[in-house]
């Protein structure tokens, strides 16, 4: 679901085809019939943005028919745990959970806690951004108090146990409701339910695949939660053939979160410290607490080792290992916030590193106007991209919004070395690090990012040398002594330091269990620890698949510790026996007293299944022999998230920010905690209960083609690929074509309150109109790779999209919005601005449109508006 795997990950899709050839049933749930649908056993079309209603329906089907894998659920999930009496569900509050504050559009989650945990009232409200879970890293927040005293009902009958709460929460997600919301006929929906449940359990497993079709929504994190709940109820996590597969879109996008270039994370999913963290101890208390189970209990070792890698000998126990050197975040510093701050003149310089936001980010116009208001811009790329040349060829030149001679941005373009001109590792979607050997030297001024940042760091350090300013200490103390080959820093040496070093011996450590909190180890990313074990670059291994078994442990290296299936302890029953011979993966060998199997066990090797932790234990020691989910604070997989999510402990169907229909389940229309950035240059199309939604009557969605890559920087300049997909197009159904007078291969243009974009029309039944609540809903689809330059040029589809983000991870809702479509080309020049302004006028759009996010109960669109606080020009 939410993935066109055959199109976007074609070589990976061969394994789906292998499974199909061996008898697996392949079901594709997606708004559009795609290359993936064509190869699946069944394609199910649903309205874009309604997946949680669909998945909630599957959960309802499982629970109402008792089809869950009960032994697995009881042993490995938090289904038996009791919630406290203060918890109120969306069923009680018209689509809100308890703790909602309409003025901050955020929750106080204290009422979502387990029963035995003292649900302390927080003194006053923390502002929305103070409470946001993106500040927790991957550890998530700890459950309060100790994990071993949680009240539980192993019979799963208690009305306040998670199992029963889940059942009630999804009680109205019936096949009839799925049909009304998603437009999926109930018999088709039930066929999916049957296929999923019949292919799960002791003897069988089912896998779930998603991509950005699930994440780029204002409820994206809860999409994944909903899929995970199903996979847990059916016993499909930690087992061979099971799992939830996030297919990531770029060569090292997994690596870019593991070793983040993200504002809220440090390497290894440690959170960036915030203004409330006075010292290292306070920071660590936010990551792990005494009495908590699991491997986040060793966060002190991970964090201190990182600080030792950052600041070397300057980091000592006496100075808190230079914890005070870290800058503090205190809210949203995401890429869209930053783009708006550029427009507002608050940011002076910008580095773009193999990234083309003028085409690739939502609301391209906002991105380009932001860049046109910088002092300086550094672009590093293989070839010229629109983000480097906006000052002379942006669409805003034509409309007069950017005038080259009056555009003050100083632009530096640095040519980059390509993947064959440098060594280093990518981490791909399966968490596998694969090393690339350098094939040739780059030519001219082409350099790697490693070269650029190593030397930029050197130059900055030289300039600040001798400074007595306290703010320069972190730069002066910075350990920047990587080995070099010529003037190129050694990627292997950087990887070795990421792996970690025992500072006493100078040897590479063997894994994160060897890291210490006493400053005796340095490690750049604890989850990558082991990639240089035995002083060998494990990511460089290339043992042929013809020479090893099905888990291919000697090809590259997979974090953590070369474990290929996460939480694979759950592939065995609580006593350590495989659930079935057919699905055996790891198991307890009683004679040898260790876990063994086909994969590296994701569990302490010598901890027996019947191990019970001593009183007062914490961290890994507190994990029982059947606590398979070793990173969780209670050792269990969370069907219900008692804390850690900003928009609720359970997934709930909300309509997208822009939708043609009212939420049929609740008065609360859309995610009540989404961030809307209400401002004049970021307008929203109206959605119910607001009036005038009919101006933008169609559902819009966009995605990829095989033959191009994201914003086109690596594809639109290549002759082969440009010939294969030469031109931007828009797909519409024959019915919509008839309604709007669109002709196959003629021009049409798509309009939102942000922009109008033209493309060639493809009339196709790949996009079937859906019947939703007694009316026809048309969907419009476009690929998004084009921009004004390159061998294959076209309008920027992302210009259609506004900036509304999911509150947990701040990803934009770019997979679903509303639009109009008209025949013919769009107006040119200033007439384009007037044309789009006409649409805004007809739809009654002001900066307040879409910002009254609470519509539950009496709210119904009259709740507080959430506009930018310090922009008087945005008052209506």
């Amino acid at each position, binding site marked *: 679901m939410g993935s066109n795997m055959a199109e976007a990950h074609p070589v990976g899709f061969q394994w789906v085809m292998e499974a199909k050839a061996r008898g697996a049933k392949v079901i594709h749930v997606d708004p559009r019939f795609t290359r993936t649908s064509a190869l699946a056993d069944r394609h199910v079309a649903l309205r874009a943005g309604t997946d949680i209603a669909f998945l909630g329906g599957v959960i309802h089907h499982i629970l109402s028919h008792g089809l869950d894998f009960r032994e697995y659920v009881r042993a490995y999930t938090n289904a038996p745990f009791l919630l406290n009496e203060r918890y109120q569900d969306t069923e009680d509050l018209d689509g809100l959970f308890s703790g909602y504050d309409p003025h901050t559009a955020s929750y106080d989650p204290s009422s979502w806690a387990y029963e035995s945990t003292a649900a302390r009232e927080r003194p006053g409200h923390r502002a929305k951004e103070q409470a946001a879970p993106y500040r927790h890293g991957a550890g998530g927040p700890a459950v309060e108090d100790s994990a071993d005293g949680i009240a539980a009902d192993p019979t799963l009958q208690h009305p306040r146990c998670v199992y029963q709460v889940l059942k009630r929460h999804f009680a109205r997600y019936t096949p009839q409701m799925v049909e009304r919301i998603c437009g999926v006929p109930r018999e088709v929906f039930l066929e999916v339910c049957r296929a999923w449940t019949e292919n799960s359990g002791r003897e069988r497993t089912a896998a779930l695949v998603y991509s950005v079709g699930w994440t780029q929504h204002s409820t994206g994190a809860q999409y994944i939660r909903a899929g995970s709940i199903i996979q847990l109820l059916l016993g499909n996590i930690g087992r061979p053939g099971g799992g939830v597969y996030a297919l990531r879109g770029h060569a090292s996008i997994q690596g870019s979160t593991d070793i*983040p270039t993200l504002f809220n994370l440090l390497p290894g999913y440690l959170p960036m410290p915030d203004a409330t963290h006075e010292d290292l101890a306070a920071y660590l208390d936010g990551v792990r607490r005494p009495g908590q189970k699991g491997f986040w209990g060793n966060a002190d070792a991970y964090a201190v080792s990182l600080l030792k890698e950052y600041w070397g000998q300057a980091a000592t126990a006496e100075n808190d290992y230079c914890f005070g050197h870290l800058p503090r975040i205190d809210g949203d510093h995401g890429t869209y916030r930053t783009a708006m701050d550029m427009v507002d003149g608050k940011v002076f*310089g910008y580095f773009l590193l193999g990234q083309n936001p003028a085409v690739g980010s939502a609301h391209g116009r906002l991105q380009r106007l932001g860049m046109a208001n910088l002092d300086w811009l550094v672009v590093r790329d293989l070839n010229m991209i629109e983000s480097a040349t906006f000052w002379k060829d942006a669409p805003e030149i034509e409309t007069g919004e950017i005038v080259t001679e009056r555009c003050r941005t100083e632009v530096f373009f640095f040519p980059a070395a390509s993947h064959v001109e440098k060594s280093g590792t*990518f981490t791909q979607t399966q968490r596998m690090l694969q090393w690339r050997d350098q094939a*040739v030297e780059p030519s001219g001024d082409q350099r790697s990012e490693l070269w650029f940042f190593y030397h930029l760091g050197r130059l900055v350090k030289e300039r600040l040398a001798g400074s007595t300013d306290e703010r320069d200490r972190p730069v002066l103390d910075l350990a920047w002594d990587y080995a070099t080959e010529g003037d190129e820093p050694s990627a292997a040496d950087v990887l070795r330091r990421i792996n970690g070093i025992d500072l006493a011996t100078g040897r590479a450590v063997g894994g994160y269990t060897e890291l210490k909190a006493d400053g005796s180890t340095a490690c750049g990313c604890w989850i990558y620890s082991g990639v240089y074990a035995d002083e060998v670059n494990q990511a460089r291994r*290339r043992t042929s698949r013809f020479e090893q078994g099905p888990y291919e442990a000697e090809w590259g290296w997979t974090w953590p510790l070369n474990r290929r299936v996460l939480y694979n302890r759950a592939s065995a029953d609580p006593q350590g026996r495989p659930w079935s011979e057919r699905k055996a993966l790891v198991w307890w060998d009683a004679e040898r007293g260790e876990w063994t199997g086909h994969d590296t066990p994701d569990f302490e090797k010598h901890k027996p299944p019947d191990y019970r932790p001593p009183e007062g234990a914490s961290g890994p020691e507190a994990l029982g022999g059947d606590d398979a989910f070793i990173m969780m604070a209670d050792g269990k997989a969370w069907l219900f998230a008692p804390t850690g999510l900003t928009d609720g402990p359970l997934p709930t169907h909300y309509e997208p920010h822009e939708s043609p229909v009212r939420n049929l389940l609740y008065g609360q229309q859309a995610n009540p905690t989404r961030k809307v950035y209400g401002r004049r240059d970021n307008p929203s199309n109206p959605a119910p209960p607001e009036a005038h939604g009919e101006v933008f009557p169609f559902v819009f969605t966009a995605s990829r083609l095989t033959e191009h*890559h994201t914003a086109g920087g690596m594809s639109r300049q290549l002759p082969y690929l440009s010939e294969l997909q030469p031109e931007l197009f828009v797909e519409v159904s024959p019915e919509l074509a008839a309604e709007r007078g669109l002709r196959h291969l003629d021009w049409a243009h798509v309009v939102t309150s942000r922009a109008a974009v033209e493309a060639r029309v493809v009339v196709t039944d790949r996009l079937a109109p859906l019947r939703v609540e007694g009316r026809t809903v048309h969907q419009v689809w476009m690929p998004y790779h084009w921009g004004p330059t390159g061998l294959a040029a076209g309008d920027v589809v992302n210009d259609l999209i506004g900036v509304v983000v999911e509150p947990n991870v701040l990803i934009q809702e770019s997979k679903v919005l509303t639009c109009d479509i008209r025949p013919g080309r769009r107006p040119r020049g200033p007439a384009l601005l007037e044309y789009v302004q006409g649409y805004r006028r007809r739809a009654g759009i002001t900066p307040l449109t879409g910002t009254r996010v609470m519509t539950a109960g009496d709210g119904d669109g009259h709740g507080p508006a959430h506009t930018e606080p310090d922009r008087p020009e945005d008052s209506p």
Partner: protein
Amino acid sequence: MGVKRWVGAWPVYRQLTGADRLGRGRAVQSRRSAGLGPRTADADRVADSVCPYCAVGCAQRVYVKDERVVQIEGNPDSPVSRGRLCPKGSASKQLVTGPQRERKVRYRPPYATEWQDLDLDVAMEMVADRVLDARRRGWQDTDASGRPLRRTLGFAGLGGATLDNEENYLIKKLFTALGAIQIENQARI
């Protein structure tokens, strides 16, 4: 040339009488095509690499002759890709050797209408100066309640999910030491 050799040189005859009945191999070879070999055969060396496009991680073999990339192929040893490449991966030789590649630093001063040349070392020095200037202008010591922030909002970064782990590591490390927190990635998008 005898009649038999003359007839035997005729592709249709060879196709009808030989093992290559579909005429896709030896039957249709001319003297010239019989002498052709793949570019990979006389490469000086082969480097193990990985496709830079999507996140599947298809293994590539990069064939080098005279210090130039002459071919990029899928690596059949890979348990991930079994030697396959998609249209993008198959086009990656164009990506790295094509005329679209920029080789020189380009510089556009404020208000200029065209690019100018700039020496790489000079450009690096200029960027270092600008980073420190923007850092200073955007610096925040404390928040409104006097709690330390120790950061700058003066400059930002965005990029690149095709960068190597080692590169991302240095970027985050340097930004963090400078107090710059607005470092973001495609992974958010």
